[in-house]
């Protein structure tokens, strides 16, 4: 672990915020005041946090249908996101975007596209904007491995390379597109190798370890920023949740469960993994870790309560009919 204690806790805190928000969604979803498809990032938090922790504030980012972690890791406001999930005008996209189209001007989170691989070409344009602005900012474009099935993904990589634009393409490879495995979709599954064949600098890193992600991203961001050439960071992690819908496959946040799980250095839960690394390398932070694990969920839960009340309030005038019990949408 190549970071200070403060940064280590910062990374943990951010991941716990993300997890807590998504656990809140799982808890609240069945009440049917959150209405819309949700693509959780449980299991994938370290990729978002590792990359965005080493970004500058004025770096701009765009994301996909699975955008919660990116929005929050970039510094998007928690309450405004939750309001957006509830369809409130106070939401970060004023109720127009919902879960798949979070936005934060302040955090330089420029939005998210739910059509593959739509935000990747947009990231190229953001990179051009950064370059023309001349202030050294970089554009970060998140995508999944499924987006890399699409031709337009590589077209975008090539264009960024030809125009020498400062773009970091982060491809989060969870091995799945809905439920179809990568090997059934790509005859050659090494996404970095493809990027290199297109003339880009590219690396693959383990996406469960937030500090490894951070190191890999820092190296590439430095290159991108100093050379104004794009790079690809392919990260691997497991999606520990359903493709869509409020279904988590890990135990709920709880200090004791996590401390236990953290003892396993092979854990695929990025939060347990991170706690494990901290406890092994900076054992004096044990108390801080427990505080984070205990307090963050409480704060987040309060935001859900507030938003839920606001929804009910708003619905007094709108009088919307409660939708039928949520079906598991496959996409």
């Amino acid at each position: 672990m190549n970071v200070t204690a403060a940064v280590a806790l910062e990374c943990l805190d951010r991941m716990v915020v993300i997890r807590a928000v998504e656990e809140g969604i799982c808890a609240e979803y069945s009440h049917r005041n959150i209405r819309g498809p949700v693509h959780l990032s449980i299991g994938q938090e370290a990729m978002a946090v590792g990359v965005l922790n080493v970004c500058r504030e004025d770096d701009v980012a765009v994301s996909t249908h699975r955008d919660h972690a990116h929005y929050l890791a970039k510094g998007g406001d928690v309450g405004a996101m939750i309001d957006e999930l509830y369809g409130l005008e106070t939401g970060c996209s004023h109720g127009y975007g919902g879960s798949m189209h979070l936005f934060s001007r302040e955090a330089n989170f420029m939005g998210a596209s739910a059509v593959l691989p739509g935000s990747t070409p947009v990231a190229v344009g953001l990179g051009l904007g950064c370059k023309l602005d001349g202030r050294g900012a970089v554009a970060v474009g998140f995508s999944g491995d499924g987006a890399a099935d699409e031709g337009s993904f590589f077209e975008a990589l090539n264009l960024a390379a030809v125009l020498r634009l400062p773009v970091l393409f982060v491809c989060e490879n969870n091995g799945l597109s809905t439920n179809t495995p990568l090997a059934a979709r790509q005859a050659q599954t090494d996404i970095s190798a493809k990027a290199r064949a297109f003339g880009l600098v590219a690396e693959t890193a383990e996406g469960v370890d937030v500090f490894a992600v951070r190191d890999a991203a820092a190296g590439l961001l430095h290159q991108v920023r100093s050379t104004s050439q794009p790079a690809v960071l392919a990260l691997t992690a497991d999606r520990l949740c359903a493709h869509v819908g409020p279904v988590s496959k890990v135990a709920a946040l709880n200090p004791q469960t996590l401390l236990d799980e953290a003892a396993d250095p092979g854990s695929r839960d990025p939060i347990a993994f991170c706690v494990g690394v901290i406890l092994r390398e900076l054992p004096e932070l044990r108390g801080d870790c427990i505080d984070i694990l205990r307090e963050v969920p409480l704060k987040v839960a309060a935001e859900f309560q507030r938003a839920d009340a606001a929804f009910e309030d708003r619905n007094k005038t709108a009088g919307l009919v409660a939708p039928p019990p949520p079906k598991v949408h496959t996409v």
Partner: protein
Amino acid sequence: MISPATLSLDYAAAVVHTLEQEMAFNPKVFVYGEGINDAGAYLNSTDGLAASFGEARCFDVPNCEDALVGLGIGSALMGYRPVFVSLRVDFLMLAMNQIINHAARWPAMTGYQVTVPLTIRALIGRGWGQAAQHSGALYSMFANVPGLEVVLPSSPAEGAGLLLTALRSDKTTIVIDDRGVFGAAEDMPSVIEPIPFGKARVARAGTDVTFFAISSMTRFALQVAEAVSASGISAEVLDLRTARPLDKETIRASAARTGRVAVFDIGWPGFGLSAEIARVISEASVLQRPLLSVHRRDEHTPSSAFLEDEHYPKLDEVVHRVKTHFS
């Protein structure tokens, strides 16, 4: 086991039933789509096909809509009858080069020496906060283009018969499966018969005003018709079935008879269905009253349940508009 003469099927089951019937009958038919063999994929409208016909005839594919339509065009040129299923019509925007420049044009480019008997099914529909990119009703851009057929079934039985015609058509046909017609079951003959394209269906007879409807808006129009009948307005509801070809004769005859028309569309107004119907009518006759168009708001769908609710036409409001407009 003797199968019953009539089956009660919902839209998804009707689609599966029709595909099974035609796949058994014609070995050239095959089906493919992203994640097609997942449990519950495509709202269950491909359930069991792989089990019945093998994965060679119902196969999963990478996310690559442009290449997937190319796959269909090329195999169609070789005499096959591919069926590509797209979860949302919005995703077909990635394949417009293959659909517009290739599927629709290849016959013309060869002097009509070839056909491209490709069927593309794509879902549209409102609801569940899916926002701008997942709820489009982008069918009128296909209906503008010669060489394509655009089909919007209004019920399970309609879905079955129209899909069968699509599967047998020599043109590239876009079948729009509207989420609004999934759910409820309907009786239909167990041996599906094709429903011809370009022939509107009288969903309700009436004398004072004609409601031209399509897709899930047919049911909506029927509800409005019921509601206004109490005020002495007798509305004829025509289910247009296909946006291309459009049943010009029936449209004109009904418009001439009632002299009052409303269009119930699932898409946007500009260069959309109400525009096209206005043209078809105006080119042949005149109206006694201005045309009324009922459509989603002319903006992209918001996610919020509150805003989404306002995005689509509301029954009460439409009933009120119809009453004041035509009486």
